[in-house]
């Protein structure tokens, strides 16, 4: 199987973002990692 290489690599600064979560709450990267590291799971989507 082929692993696709990401533009974003270990040691890079994660680009900040501001989006809403599924409850309509505004979420920024800086808030999400303010107190602890965070695991971001990118989901392919509902089919």
């Amino acid at each position: 199987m082929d692993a696709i290489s990401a533009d974003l690599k270990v040691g890079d600064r994660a680009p900040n973002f501001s989006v809403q979560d599924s409850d309509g709450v505004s979420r920024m990267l800086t808030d999400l990692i303010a107190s602890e590291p965070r695991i971001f799971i990118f989901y392919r989507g509902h089919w």
Partner: protein
Amino acid sequence: MAEYRDLYAETRKAGADVAVVATDPPKSSAGLRQQLSLPFPILCDSQRAIVKAWGVFNAAEKGGIAIPAVFVVDRAGLVRFASVDSMTARISAKDILAYLRAGMPDSTINPPRTNLKLQPANLYRVVCNLIKSGFRSARE
């Protein structure tokens, strides 16, 4: 996602939190979150802003979706772990938990689970370790 849910308490104990990023419409994500009883948020990236900025945008399918991937970002905003997967090789929540418990050591873009054998960087490290241990035992 269910796996991350099941290991969520342990993940929190290991000092980290979780978020899902989905390009689905917010309503779909809300439904999914409820259906799976996810204790962590689903971020709605309908605009594809995050997937594009983070380099995991698959333009070829369904009008553009996320490539399955897992990143661990530390408090300084640095990527400490990155796994960008083909469909069949998603890193498991257990592997991530083990990584957190190990104190988040430096990792490679592709975790050993996907293709240790094929990674020149990993091979290099293995060879280096062999050389180092050889030196050590030769001296003793």
